[in-house]
Structure formats: C-alpha cells, structure tokens
C-alpha cells in the first residue's frame, strides 16, 4: 500500500468547512486530527531598548489513529517542541528542540488545566493571558502574554485552504496581538522585557500538496494596531501557488481574508539559500513594506532528518507602515512532510 493510499484510507478528520468552533475547547488538543501545533513568536525589548525575538512552538503528531494503551509509556501522539531566542544586539541566535512521548506527564495538552507543555516548556492558556515558561541550557524566559485582541479564524468557512482537494486545508486560529511582559535570562544576565507577541494554532490531517516545496509565512504587527498574516505557498519551481492566502485584522478585531491574487510577495536578498529580505505589497490595502530580518542567522537547523530545517526569525517592516513581526520560511533544504520521514535525503 502506498503512502497515498494509506493516507486516503485513514479516518483522521480532514479540515473541511463546517467545523463548529468552541472556545476555550478549541484552543487545546484535537486528537481526531493528525497534526497540530501551537506557535508563539514575539518581539520584546528591555527598558534600555535591548531587543530580543523569541519563538516557542509545541507540535503534536499522531502516530496512529488508535494505539492499544498497554502501559504508561504507550504512545499515540508524539510531542515535539521548538524554542528559540534571538539576541539581536548580541547578534546571536539560540535554539533548542525536543521530542517526547506523553508518558507519565512528560508532554501533552491538558485542557482542564489549560496547559500545553513539553518537559519544562509550557504555555498556560487562560482567558486573559497565556503564560509561557521555557528553560534551555543557555537561556530561559518567563513571559506573560496578555490577550489584547480576541482570537481570529483564518480562511473561508473556518478552513484555511492550501490545495485544490477537499481536506488539503487546516483549521487555523491566531491570537494576532498579545502584549508580552516578563523576564529573559541569557547566560548570567537577566532582562525585564516588554513587547508584542503572536500565537498561531493549526490543526489538520493532510499533507502538503505534491506540487509544493514549502511556504513563506509572515506575521506582521503594524503600529496602527492592525495585523497581517500572509503565506506564500511555494511551488517546486519557485513560483507562488494560487493557494497562497492571507488575513488582514483590523484594529477593532475584524478579520478580512486576502486571496493569492492580492498578494505581492517578492523575495529579496538571500542568506544561505533563504531570501531573508522581502517586498510585501497588498495594493488594495495600501500596504507596501520592505521586510528586513532583525538578524540574518535565524535558522533552526534540525539535528536529525526527523524534522526539516527552517528559518524563523524576528523581522522589522518599513515603508507604508511600520511594524514588527516574524517570518517563517520552510522547504528550502528538503521537502516538508508532516508524517514520518522515510529514506535518505534525495
């Protein structure tokens, strides 16, 4: 049986229109879907203006639809997490990743307690704020992200479509503006910081369409209290897929869907093979921005071939508007797969 057939034969739920969103329930885990992540990114600075970027991501990947629970170690979902800190002033980038089974409380999502965690990296999701705690070898932080705007749901009909077939989509929820405040410890130094953060939560079961190599995703927080979420699905030939899309969130919290045709995303100068600078235009909204990375080297190199390497970094946007945000670029080293990788790199 080929992967395709197998994928087709599963009974994981597909992301199709008609999902009835309910919060806070839908902030947490959806085991009926195969893949899920919770993505926190943000730009903060201390009182002296020393800037930092951070990323904390929790992944859940189902290994099978159902697994016989033989003992506390039996694993149906694997939990992975990524953690990164960009020390912009120090021109240094730190990142760490981990993979855990749920086991006896090693990792998981506990809706009752509002807790998403992997070891000692956790997010406590409460109605008014998300509290992030993460400890790595070289750094740690404790940040409280106060919910400044209610969460938005991207796409049409509650699904963010990424390909022609039904189900080639995800349920995609974002908190586009969170006021961040807390402490970062880097080496021996402690920094009390404030800033702005963004949280993405997606759950889906499909694989990226065959024709696609990866994507470039932007989260932009403009200083007029508006936000943009844009993703450019990149085909293998390098061109943008017509399934690219975006969202525009107004100051009052209303969300507008942006189609691929409205987006003009031009890659600029390269760092390694990642285009770290971009020109971002949405003519209809009068948005014409030049995006520059706050630090070139913000690549998360994967230790193993289990997860792909990708670039995720703090960005600054100038032009028609000013703003900060994050850019994520995937698929530049190898094709992105959400299920188990197999075979050697081609």
């Amino acid at each position: 049986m080929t992967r395709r057939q197998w994928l087709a034969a599963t009974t994981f739920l597909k992301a199709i229109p008609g999902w009835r969103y309910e919060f806070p329930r839908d902030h947490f885990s959806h085991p009926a879907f195969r893949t899920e992540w919770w993505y926190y990114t943000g730009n903060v600075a201390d009182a002296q203006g020393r800037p930092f970027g951070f990323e904390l991501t929790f992944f859940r990947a189902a290994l099978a639809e159902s697994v016989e629970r033989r003992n506390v170690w039996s694993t149906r979902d694997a939990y992975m997490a990524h953690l990164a800190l960009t020390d912009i002033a120090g021109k240094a980038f730190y990142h760490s990743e981990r993979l855990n089974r749920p086991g006896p409380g090693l990792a998981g999502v506990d809706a009752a307690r509002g807790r998403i965690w992997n070891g000692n990296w956790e997010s406590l999701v409460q109605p008014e704020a998300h509290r992030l705690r993460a400890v790595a070898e070289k750094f740690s932080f404790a940040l409280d992200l106060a919910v400044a705007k209610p969460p938005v749901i991207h796409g049409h009909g509650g699904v963010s479509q990424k390909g022609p077939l039904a189900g080639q989509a995800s349920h995609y929820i974002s908190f586009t503006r969170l006021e961040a405040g807390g402490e970062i410890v880097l080496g021996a130094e402690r920094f009390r910081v404030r800033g702005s953060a963004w949280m993405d939560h997606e759950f889906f079961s499909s694989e990226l369409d065959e024709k696609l190599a990866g994507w470039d995703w932007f989260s932009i927080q403009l200083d007029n209290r508006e936000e943009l979420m844009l993703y450019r699905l990149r085909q293998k030939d390098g061109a943008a897929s017509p399934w690219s899309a975006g969202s525009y969130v107004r100051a009052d919290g209303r969300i507008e869907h942006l189609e691929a045709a409205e987006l003009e995303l031009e890659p600029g100068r390269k760092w390694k093979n990642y285009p770290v600078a971009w020109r971002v235009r949405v003519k209809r909204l009068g948005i014409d921005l030049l995006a520059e990375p706050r630090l070139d080297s913000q690549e998360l190199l994967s230790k193993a071939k289990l997860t792909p390497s990708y670039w995720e970094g703090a960005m600054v946007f100038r032009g028609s508007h000013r703003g900060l945000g994050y850019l994520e670029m995937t698929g530049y080293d190898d094709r992105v797969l959400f299920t188990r990788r197999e075979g050697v790199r081609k």
Partner: protein
Amino acid sequence: MSALFARLILRPLWADRGRTMVTLASIALGVAVIFAMDLAGEAAAGSFRSSMETVSGGEDIEILSTGGLPADLLGRLSGLPYPLRYSPRIEDFAIVNEKRTVPLFGVDVFANALELAEAGNRAEPKLTEAGQRGVFTTAGLGRRGESIRLQVNDEAHDFTILGTIDSRQVSGDLVLLDLEDADLVTGRQGKIDRILVTLPETEKAAVDQWAERLRQGMPEGITVRPVGARKEENRKMLAAFRWNLRVLSYIALLVGAFLIYNTISVSVVRRRAEIGIVRAVGGTGRLMVAGFLAEALFFGLAGGLLGLALGRILAEGAVKLVGLTVTALYVSSTAAPVEFAWSAAAVSLGSGVLVSLLAALAPALEAGRIPPTEAMARGRVDTQLQAAAGRQLAYAGALLGLSWALSLLPPWGGKPMGGYVATLALVGAASFTAPSLVAFVGRRMTGWAGVEALLAGRSLAGALRRSSVLVAALATAIAMMTSVGIMVGSFRETMLTWIDRQIRADFYLRPAGEAAMDRHPTISEDVARRIEQIPGVLAVDRFRAYSIRYNGLPVILAAGDVQAQMRYGRTSLQKGDNADAVRGMLAGEAVIVSEPFGEKHGVKVGDRITVPLGQARPSFRVAGIFLDYSSENGYIILDQSVARRYLPADEPSNLAIYADEKADRAALRARIEASYAPRRIALFENRSLRNEAVRIFDQTFAVTYALEAVAIFVAVMGVAGAMLALIIDRRREIGLLRFLGGAAGQVRRMVLFEAGLIGLFSQLLGVLSGALLSLVLIFVINKQSFGWTIEFHLPVLALLSALAFVLLATILAGLYPARMATRLNPIEVMHEE
C-alpha cells in the same frame, strides 16, 4: 666501566646460559603473573563498571530506589525549571536465543530519537505498523531484520531487530528496547529502575550541588547521587577480592627472589678469584657490590620485560578465570578488553626489579667485603654459615612470634594487612629454619643409609647457603599450596555442612539462566500460587531479593516467608534468639542479617539499621545473625508482609517448596514442572543444589589454583637450575668419586638423592608452615576480608596427593642434573686449575 661489567658479569652469564635462562625465566614468570592478574582483574571487572554502566552517555547524576521509581516522578522532574536532561532507564538482563545473558535496557526512544538520529543511528520513534515489536542490539547479537528471542525473568519473547547500536559507545553486547516494550517484558508495571540526569556542560563541575537540589522534595527512600558513586562502590566492593588476588600473585615472584639470591651467591662464590684479583689491582669493595647489584638489575629488568610481554598474553586467559569469580560472587560484569595499562606494567616491572635487587643485596655486600688475599685461597668450606644457622633459628623463632602477634591485629582500611604481613613473617620463619634443618639432617647422614645418601646429605650440608635457599624457595611454594589447599578445603567443608543444615526445602525454583550476585530475575506470582495448590506441597516460601547499597557497599535485601522458614526450614541463628526474631520479623519491627553483613558493617544483635525500601527509609532492629556462605555481600532478611507494605506489587525471585515427607517425590516434581511448563524456570532438588553450590565454589577458586601451580613450577624449575649449578661447582668432587671407584649409576643416584632430600626438607618445612599459614588465612585474612567463619578441616587426600606430586616433580627435576653429573669427564675436571 661498562666493559668491566660486560667482561665480569655479562660474559659469564652468557657462558652459563642454562642457569641464566632459568633465573631469567623465574623472574619473568613472577612478573608475568603479577601483571596478568592485575590486567585481568581490571578487565574482568569491566573496569569496575557493572554491566549496567555499559551504556554511558556522560550522565552525571542517578536517581534510584529499592523496588523502582514511580513513573510520575519522571513527569515531575521534567517539569522542574532546571536545564537538565532526564533519561529514564529500565535495566535488566535477558538471555539471548537461549545462550548468553546480556544486559537489557529500556530507554525512552522518543526522547533520544533526535540524538540517535543525529549520530547516524536509525532509531526512529516506534513504527506505526501495529504488532511489530522491535529491539536494537549490538552487532554481536544479530543484524537488522533478524529475529531474536529474549528470555527475561521466566518468559521468552520474540522480537525483530530494528537496528544496530554503534558498538563504540558501549562495551559488550546489549539489547535496547523502548520503555513501553521493556516495561511489558520485564514486568515493571510503570516503575523505572533509574533516572539518569545530565547536566549542561557549564554545570558539570557542580554535580554535588545539583544532586542536593534534586534531593529536596523527594521522598526519603529515593537516592539521588552522582553517577561516579557506583563505580567507586564497585571498586570498594571488589577491593578485598582484588587485594587477595594481588597478594597471591606475588608468591611466584617471592619464590623467584630466593632463586635470585641463590644465583647471585653462586656468582660471588665462583668469581672469588676474579674478585680478589680486581681488588688486588685497585677495585674497591663498593665496585664489587655495584657489580653484583648490576647483575641482579640485569635479571630484574630483562626478566621483568619478558614477564610483561608474557603477562600480557596470559592476561587474556586469566580474564576468563577471574571473570567467573567476579560474576559469581559480585557483579554481573561484561569483561572489558584487556588493556595494556602502563601503571600496572610499571608496578609489575618495578616489583621484579626491586625484588631482584633486594634478594641480591646480601651476597653482593658480601662480595664487597672479600679481601683480596682471601680470593686466592680455594677449597674452603663455608663454615661461617654453620654458625649463622643457629642465629637464623633464633630469627625464625622471633618471626614466628611476630606473625602470631600480627594475626591479632584488626583490619586496616577493610583489608587484613596484619594478616598479610603475618604471612610474610611465617614464610620468613620457615626460610630461616631451613639451614638448621639441612645442616642437622645432612651432617648426620651416615653410611647406614647407603653411600649415595651419605654423600648427598653431606654435600647439601656442605653447600648450606645454596641448599637452604633452595629448600626455602620450594618450601615457600609448598607452604602456599598447602595453606590455600587447607583453606579452600575447610571452606568447602564448612559450606557443605551449612548447606546440609540450613537448606531444608525440598525444591527450589528460580528463573533459568546463569546466576549472578546482582541479578534478581523474577518468577510470576501465579506460578507460586499454582504450586501452592498442588497436594503434597506444605508451603511455598517466596523469596524476593533486591540489590541495595548500605554504607556504600552492596547488600542483598531479601523478603521471605518467615513463618514457613521457621516451621519447615528450621533455620537457626548463630546469634540471637529464634523465637524473638520470628516474632519481631512478623511484627514488622525486626530483621535478621547474615554474618558477613554483621562483620563488614559492625552490626550486632540489638542494633538498629535503616534500609531504603521503596519510597521510604524505615529502620529495623537486628534480631539475629545467621551464617551464610552464598554471598560475601551480606543479606538483610525481612518478612514478606513488611516488604509488601512498601513494595506492594513485587514478584518473587525464587521459590522454596516444602513438601510433605510422605508425598511421592517424583510425582510431585512432575506436577510442579507441569505447573510452570512454558516458563523458563530452573528446578533444583535439594541434593542437586549441593552439587550446584560445589560447582560454583570450584569455579570461583579456579584462579587460585592456577596461581599456585605457577609458584610450584617456578620453584621446581629453580631447583633444577640450582642443582645443575651445584653439580658444575662440584665437578671436581664428582670426578674424584669416579677415581675412587664410583660407578656412573652411583653418581646419578647421589644427585637424585640430593633432589629428593631437598624435596623432603621442603615438604617438611612447607607443610608445617603451610598448616600455620592456613590458620592465618582462615581465621584472619578470610574473616577480615569477607567476614565468614570457616571451620578448620584438613583435606587429607587432596593434600597428600598434591604433596606427592610435588615431591615427584622435585626428584624429576634432578634428572637432568644427574645426567650432567654422569657425563662429566673425570680426567678433565680433575686436572683443571
């Protein structure tokens, strides 16, 4: 200077090749044995790592408790805001394809996946294909895709090998499973054997602080400590054993020392003329001393270097022997490869050189004192030594007294130092008695014993220094052989008596496979229950053993059915009251301990001890001490009801079945076997347990026997070489005999008689001093090293046959010299100047 050395020393050595070879060989063998034992001991103990340490990943702290850690402890730890990595481990042993026992590890494949993948191991999270059960093994156990059968505890499971572990990171073969499978296969039911904690690079120096930090908030019964601690403990535990081995290995060198003394003495005597000449032309006495010490140095260095090479080769074979002992008595160890350790080499070589120099000191000093004129005189009997013999007898007496005093000393640093020195003193006493013995008997030999005997006795008495040294050398080897033989024989007898008295159950069951001191595989509880139902079975005593640490030394904590023991087993205590002990143990406030435990930790009846049990650290009163020879480590015995309170779900390590006397044994045995049929369980009937014990016992002393044999060989070889030298030095006398009408056969018989006399004297001295030595071995060295009480038994038959063999060997050693003697041309020797 070097030309002088070459001419005076080296050339005669070359001219006398045979004797030089023998002396070199004896030093070489002595050094080889010491070196081999050191290397082998190190390797066999796996460099003091138990098999559990074979997979090391630079972890710094370990967390453990008796009966296993609860899994949610891991969850709690991983949530702590510390930059630490936690590796849970399930550690057990599996019998692979019904042949070998290897360590089995359960690790969190998920948590390690990233590292393993990075390192090139294709260790992926568990496959989603249902039903596939996989393991990772080292290359020695199979290849990817092959199937492998693992027996853990009493059940066998089939697995597929998913991948091969890079053997550079581990020592020895092992099997790796994911925690989920390991838990099922070992029956841990959610428990973890150890959690290993890795500190970040920058914190590695602060191990103790981190251990303390982690210890806060943990229940008392849980131990948190740096990882090196176990290595240190193993080192301590094996220390006594390795010291004994080390001391034993020095015997061959000691015998070699006698031979060096002899050789250098002979050198001095033969070159009296040359020495006188050199002195007459201006050489100083110190030059002479230096010269002969240089000769001894040559033997020490050349022999020592040879010995190192030989020892390295011998070490390979010795590893197996020593490994048997270590596994049986202490710790399942995977033998590490034998490594040429420079420090051990230096010590062995240094010992060889030092011993040679010391042995040569007396004759060398004497050479320095030879006045020039005296060298010209020839044909004088060494009358000085005859007077000295009396003085030496006095020394012997003093040494005897000294050794008695030394054996009264308590142990020092856990080692019976007093006993070791007493041994040396006894050997010294025997050596100093030798001249008197030889002179006394030799001089009183008359023609009544035959002319050959007369001549033999007189010649020995006439060359008193040389002959008495030979006798001392051989006597030392015989004394060692005798004393160790008596000790081992006594031990055996004591142990067998103990088995007969204490082991009263009719059948014993334990999981099949080789037994080792630190492995406690279990039998499923349902088997025990089923056996209980069999008619004819009076009681099933479930025995559960755990390896714990007490004061840094390993101890076995065991839980048994005290009532069944006392009622059917009729266990009796060496100290303490039986009834009180039973009551106390059933009430859960008392325990009994074995004699070695009491000796090692200074615990007496009435003392209290604290024992880690599950999550707690309860304390108990010691109600009794019992004799036990199955383990040097010591036992603490609780009643099973107490154990169950702290460790509820645990299964027995072995079952003792008491049967009704009237029951048909064969039928009962068949029914018991049927009750556990597919499981891998070994059944021992009472009498075969005896045989099993004897087999293990003999196995553990294999290395001792080997060492003794080497010492005897060195001594006998020395006798042959020295006798040859004696013949050569007496060639004129032997030639004369032919002139006086002696036949060739008479000459041969005379030499054989000399060999026989040396043998007899050595046997006499050796057996006497050996008997005394055995007392030191049994009542001092053994008691202080291991803590056992051994009853003195004389293994008459074994001793007699060994002694007869040695006597025969000694006489045979005289065969070649005898032939040489008959081959001498009387005319040539008589007319030599």
